[in-house]
């Protein structure tokens, strides 16, 4: 493989990591509070609020049911309004966030719901406010599960970002599509696929490792 190609692959890797990194960050900034709201406003939550829970649930379900490739095209006007263009890794972040935030919200919700109801009741019996329960009980107690969710979230976003390659989304996806699909360059295709697999493995294993080693329920 010539050095120009290798350089392109390195650039692709970096672009992919940039897209995934920024998307994960923004998706959690939006999805985390939404997940908390979903959990606490549930009918068994610490602050049951049925209308809010229902409305938020419906919006998230709608966004989650649109296949990513269609969402990618559908939000193009919105993307152009924000970034000024619809191609390249910067622009791809917009649809990636729109697809990932609801996903993150659901992951966070399910992690928080795993926290033992008895522990929450104990915190309430000690006079904790709702905010204190969220900050000092729900989030810390769910931490290992949230980290595992984060690893799954990153790998899902990585998959989405590669899909964006079909519409010039940048990164490894675009290289795979341009060389492997349009030019029948199987070797480059194979290398990009391998790179994607390696990146997924690294994030997944790292997430599991951190989760396991910070979880105090397991005695080491």
């Amino acid at each position, binding site marked *: 493989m010539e050095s120009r190609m290798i350089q392109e692959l390195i650039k692709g890797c970096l672009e992919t990591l940039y897209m995934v990194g920024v998307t994960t960050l923004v998706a959690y900034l939006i999805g985390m509070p939404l997940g908390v709201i979903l959990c606490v406003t549930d009918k068994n939550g610490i602050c049951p609020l049925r209308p809010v829970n229902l409305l938020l649930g419906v919006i998230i379900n709608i966004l989650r049911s649109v296949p990513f490739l269609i969402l990618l095209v559908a939000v193009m006007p919105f993307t152009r309004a924000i970034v000024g263009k619809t191609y390249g890794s910067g622009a791809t972040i917009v649809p990636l966030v729109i697809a990932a935030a609801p996903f993150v919200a659901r992951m966070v919700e399910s992690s928080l719901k795993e926290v033992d109801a*008895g522990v929450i*009741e104990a915190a309430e*019996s*000690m*006079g904790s*406010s709702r905010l*204190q329960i969220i900050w000092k009980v729900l989030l*810390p107690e769910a931490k290992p599960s949230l980290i595992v969710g984060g690893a799954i979230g990153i790998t899902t976003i990585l998959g989405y970002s590669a899909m964006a390659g079909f519409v010039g989304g940048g990164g490894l996806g675009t290289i795979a599509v341009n060389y492997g699909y349009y030019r029948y360059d199987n070797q480059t295709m194979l290398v990009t696929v391998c790179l994607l697999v390696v990146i997924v493995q690294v994030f997944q294993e790292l997430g599991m490792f951190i989760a396991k080693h910070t979880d*105090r*329920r397991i005695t080491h």
Partner: protein
Amino acid sequence: MKEWASLFVGKKETGESPLIELKHLGKTFRDGAKPVVAIKDINLTIEDGDIFGVIGLSGAGKSTLIRCINFLEKPTEGQVIFDGVDLGSLKHSELLRTRQRMSMIFQGFNLLAQRTALENVCYPLEIAHVKRKAAREKARKLLEIVGLGDREKAYPSQLSGGQKQRVAIARALATDPKVLLCDEATSALDPNTTRSILELLKKINAEMGVTIIVITHEMKVIEQICNRVAVIDQSHIVEQGLVKDVFLAPKSRIARELILPQTEAVEEVHGERKVRIVFDGNSAFEPVISNLTLECHAAVNILGADTKNIDGKAYGQMLLQLPEDENAQSRIFNYLNTRKIPYEEVC
């Protein structure tokens, strides 16, 4: 301890008023299709310094009752008066501060799994905005008191059931509560651990002056630590009084069921006359049964017997099967009456 002064809400009555008064307390759950009455018309008075037991079978409403006392469940009827303040009249923020003076421990311990023992004890102090250093010092002292001074860095997963409950007790004591609510606190523990946890609660009551309310389905818990008891059955309080009075003369069906010696034989000899006799502290030293058989010239069958230690006094009870002969029976009743041995016929 200056911080605590600011936490006292409402007016504090200094007179002889009871610490906790439940007036016509009721709770009906209405989330399902049919409303479910959990407790109804509960009237209880708990004095400062009491170890008050509430006993009942599962489903009787005990758990709802104790959760209504600190408004974890909001009662649908009646009042909870704590230290002269009607909890129902408090704003949410005031209620939260009041809860810091009425701690609770649970059957499932409910410790924060991601915090060490010490950090668990610090939790209620963080909630009360106590400075970190002062909180840790206090938490250490409390862990010493419950006998876990050397385990402060352990996580709950590294502790046994009894140790977890000790951490939970230390945590509950952190905010210097006036009352400690115990919801089946020993039900998940083995008999030896149960005894040591109950001893600890007794010590806390005696030395720190914390009033304790115990919810349980086990008579032995009541016998070991309570001075007063209420029996709850099908959402109502059916009987209450001093533990020794209820033990000597249980009036309600459910109290008898809980107090009578548990023997299989009781079922088999059903139909004949049976008598439960109770010894108080004095007659426990007399050979009552030997004298009875000698004086009445009648043999009795002992179906079951046990002794209990209530308030430091020995109480025994015995379930006797009487002979068929009616004359012998009347001699026995006569003997029991003249010797003033409390008894009751059981069917």
